[in-house]
């Protein structure tokens, strides 16, 4: 069996690690909102996002929503979290991975019309990795299954 001195040290260490975990757990819970890197579109529509201040908005670019009014550098598109949509306007160069149906994070603020005016757009890569042929066959499959 374990010697008493060792057992005591083991218990002390266990208490220390448990204590540290609980303390940090509570700290993280109370800072939970600050740890979010971006607001979702539902938060923004629900009025949870700050007014007249810069914040980040994340979501998926809705397919077919990307347009360039006036043929300029300005891009307008709609972001969604599959529940609420927010229109975003951005003037500048978009990252490589920006495309319709892809997640992005935009930094900017809301104007009076409720349009999000972005100063910076970052692409949010998803966790899927596959060769192009597999992607194509997946697409075909979803098309055929929809047709049935």
């Amino acid at each position: 069996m374990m010697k008493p001195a060792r057992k005591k040290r083991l218990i002390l260490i266990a208490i220390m690690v448990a204590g540290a975990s609980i303390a940090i757990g509570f700290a993280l819970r109370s800072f939970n909102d600050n740890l979010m890197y971006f607001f979702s579109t539902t938060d923004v529509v629900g009025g949870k996002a700050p007014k007249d201040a810069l914040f980040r908005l994340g979501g998926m670019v809705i397919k077919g929503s990307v347009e360039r009014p006036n043929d300029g550098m300005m891009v307008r598109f709609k972001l969604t979290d599959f529940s609420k949509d927010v229109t975003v306007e951005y003037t500048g160069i978009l990252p490589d991975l920006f495309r319709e149906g892809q997640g992005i994070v935009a930094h900017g603020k809301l104007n009076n019309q409720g349009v999000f005016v972005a100063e910076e757009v970052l692409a949010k890569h998803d966790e899927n990795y596959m060769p192009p042929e597999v992607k194509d066959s997946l697409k075909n499959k979803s098309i055929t299954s929809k047709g049935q």
Partner: protein
Amino acid sequence: MFLVPNAVVRFFHRMASPPHFYVFTECVMPWLIVIFALLSAAGLYGGLYLAPADYQQGDSYRIIYIHVPSAWMSLFIYVAMAITAAIGLIWRIKLAEIIAISSAPIGASFTFIALVTGSLWGKPMWGTWWVWDARLTSELILLFLYLGVIGLYGAIDDKRVASKAIAILALVGVVNIPIIHYSVEWWNTLHQGPTVTKMDKPSIHVSMLIPLLFMALSFKFYYLIALLQRVRIELLRRERNSQWVKTMLLESK
């Protein structure tokens, strides 16, 4: 102690004795190096040449064959360091203390590699080198924890006292490990969610996954090799006045 076979217990008891450990590791070292070389050759050939390009990122995604195994190792080595440090603290086993401190620089290097490769990939893919989201920030804290362990150990002259001090620091820092792993699920982050280490099926095509697993295994062997070399040196340094070191050095002359 009931579930472990006697032979295994005896092996660990023998390994805890420095002279046995020194001789044994010298014998296994060439094998470890051969296995590491084969695994990393297979992993790199598979990852950089055989694996197909990604449907969205093209060839840029191939950085995962370094980035992901390094990030896994940064967590794995920290846990190994904390466990051996705790064993050293509770049972006062000298070898466990040495394994703990010898892990720190290797873990710090893997953390650094994970951060740098991630940053290099982030610029073209996300559009930025760095963001302060939960995943990137907690991984940076991990690097500082490693550096803190190394610095604390160096600041205390009595190495047995130093080992106790770093054990406390390493054990408190363990809290950060689940935070790093779950950060992408608990909070909104720019960093993507887990691809391989999730309950569901991995979201990576099998032709890309196999080289990744080879690389992960080869990094484990690299850790073992670098660790054993460091432990042997630290062992000689700490035991320089003991009889077995003197006899061994005289015999080798």
